[in-house]
């Protein structure tokens, strides 16, 4: 039972967390300008590295906050966690 460091609540058992897949895959600014292959790439294709992988986790049974973690996929060791903050450029849903 691995511990995962929630950036807000501290270390908790992994069963309190929910996995969110690769981080840093932004929703396209305007999906309508993508061709089918580009769109399929966004919907389905994710990196699967052997080694450091930046991914999203949610402390589902705790503060319910999503955060970004860097995990070594070979050892499952978490190399870094950080709360999701202002580092991302703002985007706006198209209406």
């Amino acid at each position, binding site marked *: 039972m691995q511990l995962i460091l929630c950036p807000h609540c501290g*270390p908790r058992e992994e069963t309190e967390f929910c996995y969110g897949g690769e981080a840093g895959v932004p929703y396209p600014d305007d999906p309508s300008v993508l061709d089918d292959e580009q769109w399929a790439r966004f919907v389905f294709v994710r990196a699967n590295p052997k080694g450091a992988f930046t991914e999203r986790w949610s402390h589902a049974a705790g503060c319910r906050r999503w955060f970004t973690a860097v995990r070594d996929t070979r050892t499952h060791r978490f190399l870094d966690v950080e709360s999701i903050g202002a580092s991302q450029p703002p985007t706006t849903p198209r209406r």
Partner: protein
Amino acid sequence: MTRIDGYGHALDRTRTSTVTVNGRRYTGHPGDTLASVLLAHDVGAIGTGVKYGRPRGITAAWTEDPTGLVQIEEPFPEPMLLASTVEITEGLVARGVNGQGRLAQVPDHARYDRRHTHCDVFVVGAGPAGLTAARRAARDGSSVVLVDDRPTPGGTLTGTERIDGKPALAFVDDVVAELAAHPDVTHLQRTTAFGHYDDGFVLALERRTDHLGSEAPAGRSRQRVHRIRAARIVLATGAIERPVVFEDNDRPGVMLASAARDLLHRHGVLAGRDVVVATTTDSAYAAALDLAAAGARVQVLDARAEVPPSWADRCAAAGVAVTAGTTVRGTVGEHRVHGVLVGDDRAEMPCDLLLVSGGWTPTSHLVSHVGGTLAYDEALGAFVPGEQLAGVDVVGAAKGTFGLAAALREAGGDDAPTAPEEPSTPSLVVWRTDGDPSRQFVDIARDATVADVARAVGAGMTHPEHVKRYTTIGTAHDQGKTSGMLAAGIIAELTGRPITALSPTTFRPPFTPVGFAALAGCQRGELFDPVRTTAIHDRHVRAGAEFEDVGQWRRPRYYPQPGEDMTAAVLRECVAVRTRVGIMDGSALGKIDVQGPDAAVLLDHLYTNLMSSLKVGRVRYGVMCGHDGMVVDDGTVLRLAEDRFLVTTTTGNAAHVLDSMEEWLQTEWPHLRIRLTSVTEHWSVFAVVGPRSRAVIARAFPGLNVSNAGFGFMTWQDTGLDGVDVRLARISFSGELAYEVNVASWYASALWDHLVAAGEPEGITRYGTETMHVLRAEKGFPIIGQDTDGTVSPHDLGIGWAVSTKKADFVGKRSFARAVNHDPMRKQLVSLLPTDATTKLPEGSQIVAWCDDGALPPPPVPMLGHVTSSYLSAELGRPFALALVTGGRERIGEVVGVPVGTALVPARIGGSVLVDPEGARRDG
């Protein structure tokens, strides 16, 4: 009877217990194991091997025993326990395992539980090193947990040693007493650390009551899984003696030297009268001398060219003959050893017990569990823990530090206890002696021989992991505790590769077998999985509801009246709702409060519909899709204020929808001013449905304008009752005039009673989820997850009207633009009416083209789709179904075939709305 007076420190000789093994009764003492009782009665063979059926006896005194398996029959059936580890209690009944064990055929009513423990230092093993490490940590002020798998502490100490100038067992008692006096020390015997995981986490199984027999207290768990999280872990797990492989080494009467010594000192049992000790190392001499002192005739065969002088002198004094440079090549006997074959000329030497020692293998399983590497130590002929793991210290024999004095020093630090230094002579590493490889057992538990290893190597396997899987070596109950190292050594010999080039097989949890019951703990029966109930669950129980599980929710399915089965009850409930009025508890629906100036922006993006245009006071049905354009959820959206919505989700999907909404907000658009709050349990929701529902609502809420003009379809209103806020909404999931009544759940019971009372003059009828499903299916309303499976788009469901064409984007929109989404041959939701008007098509049935002869053609038969929902309809007076059918809407009017059992049932495809297609009923 070979019980020796003056030995047996574990026994309570003032009391006796009688056990039955293989139909014979044996008397022993508390403190005995099944193995010690059997050996005290000179029992050799107790069962037979798994593959060749050869006799099997007791080889070792603890969990490393590969052979001494018993099936417990009383007090509760358990398969494949080791006689060496079963403490006897009065009335225990067992029999030897012949091949395989047998699971209990009766439920296990014993209690099992788990407990979480946190500590600074967790010590595994209460031998001299572990006790010393625990004492050191306790004296430092650390919180300490010390576990040991045997009934009593002391590890391999026999009582003949001296520590700090006193008898070793007195030292053990002193340390145990000191630990017991520390408030922050927990010391558990009969507790096996069976798994070591990341971040200082260890699972340990405590056997709490079996040894108490009939005196076991009621209400206490039989076994407890301790989940221990420690800042530092000290592994003092000792070492396991290993044998040498020779011909017919599986014969009962062949035993590890340390086991005979342990049996003598712990249980007062002399395992043989005429003993041959075959060794490659010093430690077996202690066994030889102890057995001789207890009255056995003992001869030692030392594989080394020279006998260590100190042992030679002591043996001479004790009358123990020693021969150097000699090995055992085989055994003779029937069901037990009658003699050994010695040396190149295989000279027969009579004996009734052959003790073997090929050296010691550090018990490094718990190092290996967490990915710790092992390195080969040439001098020991064994793998020892490699580089140090963070937060894990290995001390004593487990680290390859043999010798009591050295182990104490290693574990004890500045105030380490002392013991006399014993001179030690290098061991000789011998894996096997010459003989017939097909009768040289490497893993006796698996009946796997040197010939099997040779076959594996001959087939090209050189890595122990591969050989393990080919030969099954190391996969039995003992997980290769004695055989793993031998296998590696023999593989090295047969491949001609140095053993240092091999890595041992990876040890995986559990260290010893753990019952599933213990792992499950209290998670059985009602506590197997949380059962979620609504605020008025007791009302449903009292009304005699039958329940169904929807996700974790337990919802009333129907309310049978006396003599009614489900079919009759549901038909009655359906008629009541369509002709009068019914009431249903819809509180399990997920409910999310969406609040903030940008609330409509988020909803516009997540729903296929346009939600920003919804006016305050109104309600809209909404559909959510994934990026792939497939439906993931649906529900209603109430606009409570310009900046506030109440969103409902399907019962099973509530948490997922909220998580996914939070993910959008927190990761994609954190600048949006929106907050999401689950209010699923805060609000209870009761649906009052049917043509007379207006009268019921009017009576329940005097003063509320219930007219169509005053309270239109898909609008909501707040009202009050006795000063309590109540929210009503005109939402219908049946096509009938209907009201959803929402109230804070504290008042749910009272409001439910109030509504039932108000409905009495109208004949209000409680109905459950089954009736709800029939009514919605008659209207063609899909249930997400029943009529959809993640491959179904809103258009496939015939609810393309809920997909906005005005919005620039929303989740799933881009996927709708793909050509395949417009393929007219996609599967579409349609109704199916079996033409015989009597067959209820089983849900999940395949749909195929109708064949005029009414028979299923030979395969392959192209599938056109499948039945997703199927019910009897009171309104239609016949069964009907919903189905996903390839090109279904174009096939309306066609007859297709549905295989039901061996028959092919014809069914006509129709539009998905079967009742009130013009929607005339919704306003009453």
